[in-house]
């Protein structure tokens, strides 16, 4: 019975997602949404990927990383070079960008994940900046002036289905023995180790997967614009994703989706008042830490909350 329930949960979410896609795609085709909001729809989807992948590292595995924008940059630049200079198909370029970012994450992760807490945070922030500065000094990709003439490949369908894949990937990962190993590391590293878990391996694994998805998201991001510059990938960008993750809940995919949606929406709505936007984020962050440090959703997912189960489930424990 339980086994069926797991699959049914997935199915319900999938059906729901496809309906959502049809509606949004309809709104785009019917030109109901202005081009400004169309672009923001893309950005929301991309941000969901970034927030969920950062959550895998920071929330589920408890390794506080601030280098996400760097991995995003790697994916973006590898992607645009492949599509623009080598006419590689878009999908393949995205995958290549993801692999490149993941590989870099793997190499960086092995030495740095020995560090803990705030030290890891600063070290990853520094590494993200180093990546950016190195890109800034590569003339082949335009240096500080940026990379021009990127083909506009990123459509809503690309973003939506890659986002969906990311979410299912992370959800299934978290609900497996590998994901549980990551949770154990977050909860108590010494106990995790004494339960036979190779903690370094799983920290690096989570970090690599997170970096790879950030790379794919970077590719999607880059192909939504004509020009990208290294300035689009500063650690301020990472803070943006951090705000989404913290707001939604460190350890909740539902939370990351909600966080990405809310933050992107606020940013878009307050685009003309950038100071206010940042002040609102600042105050929100501080108040959250005071009154609800676990974020809006805590460790909960929509699929195991009362309302969802009442609507769709007949019994049994939700796990998906």
């Amino acid at each position, binding site marked *: 019975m339980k086994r069926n329930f797991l699959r049914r949960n997935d199915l319900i979410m999938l059906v729901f997602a496809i309906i959502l896609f049809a509606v949004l795609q309809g709104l785009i085709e019917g030109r109901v949404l202005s081009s400004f909001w169309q672009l923001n729809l893309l950005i929301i989807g991309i941000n969901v990927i970034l927030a969920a992948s950062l959550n895998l590292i920071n929330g589920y595995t408890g390794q*506080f990383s601030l280098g996400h924008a760097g991995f995003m940059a790697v994916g973006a630049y590898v992607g645009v070079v492949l599509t623009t200079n080598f006419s590689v198909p878009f999908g393949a370029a995205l995958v290549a960008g993801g692999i490149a970012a993941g590989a870099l994450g793997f190499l960086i992760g092995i*030495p*740095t994940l*020995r*560090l803990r*807490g*705030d*030290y890891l*945070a*600063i*070290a990853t*922030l*520094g*590494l993200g*900046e*180093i990546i950016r*500065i*190195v890109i*800034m*000094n590569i003339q082949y990709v335009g240096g*500080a002036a940026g990379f021009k003439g990127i083909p506009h490949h990123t459509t809503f369908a690309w973003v939506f289905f890659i986002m969906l894949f990311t979410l299912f990937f992370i959800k299934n990962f978290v609900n497996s023995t590998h994901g549980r190993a990551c949770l154990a590391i977050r909860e108590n590293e*010494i106990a995790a180790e004494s339960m036979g878990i190779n903690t370094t391996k799983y920290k690096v694994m989570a970090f690599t997967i997170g970096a790879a998805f950030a790379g794919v998201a970077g590719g999607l991001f880059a192909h939504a614009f004509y020009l990208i510059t290294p300035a689009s990938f500063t650690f301020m960008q990472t*803070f943006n994703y*951090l705000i989404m993750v*913290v707001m939604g809940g460190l350890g909740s995919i539902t939370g990351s989706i909600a966080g990405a949606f809310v933050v992107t929406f606020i940013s878009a709505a307050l685009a003309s008042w*950038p*100071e*206010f936007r*940042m*002040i609102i*984020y*600042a*105050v*929100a*962050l*501080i108040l*959250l*830490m*005071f009154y609800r*440090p676990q974020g809006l959703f805590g460790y909960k997912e929509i699929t195991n909350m009362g309302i969802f189960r009442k609507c769709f489930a007949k019994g049994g424990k939700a796990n998906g």
Partner: protein
Amino acid sequence: MEVTQQVLQQLINGISLGSIYALIALGYTMIYGIIKLINFAHGDIYMVGAYIGFFSITQAGLGVIPSLMISLVTTGLLGMAVERIAYRPLRHAPRISVLITAIGVSFFLEYTSMYFVSPTPRTFPALFGDVAVDFMGIVINGQQMLILGITAILMVVLTYIVQRTKTGKAMRATSFDTETAELMGINSDRIISITFGIGSALAAVAGVLVGIYYNSIDPLMGIMPGLKAFVAAVLGGIGILPGAVVGGLILGVVEALVSGFLSSTFRDAAAFAILILVLLVRPTGLFGKNTKEKV
């Protein structure tokens, strides 16, 4: 000869810049030592200090020293207020929560300042004209002399406070073991508050000095020096005051050499590379001692 001269010139530039880092790093290291928090907002405190100095000089028409004093006092109070409002309620919260709060405070200071003073950089009045000492082709200008002089004075004052006064002893005790210090009758809340005050005051001085040195200030000027000062503090061994000074000076010199002989775009990368190297090779820093979690 040419090359030695250049190296020496960069050394002077590096020590000037390094003194600024040292002043900021002192605050970082004191605060980390006492409540184990990377105060992300520390760089922004330094920015606020620069603006207060700027307005004292330009709007109120005060001299450098009075402006420094005003900036030092008000910014010190600001640091205490930040601690009281944002950090004290989280004294027993997980460290990551406090770190996130610090990031929030940092944004808050940056963007409220931006709202009030506008994002456009302000030009600091040139105070020293062409005062400069030329020693065998190596130039030390007036701003640099001011920076070195004031930094030296502040180091002496700080050493006196920490080593000789009752408050300083209480600070050291609290940083060593807060609970035991409290049992000895030390009001740790008060000591933490004073630590924030002193640390912020030092950052404020650094802010004004940087304004005078580079002639330009803006609301986001604190981000990079803040991070680099943290690097300096880690390099010297976090929580150790002389370590912060040495770390700051080393970082300044390395940066000057990198921008002088390689490329100024790699300047920031050098600082972070140092950080990562230190964390991997000797996470306790140059002067730190090892501790291990008890099982």
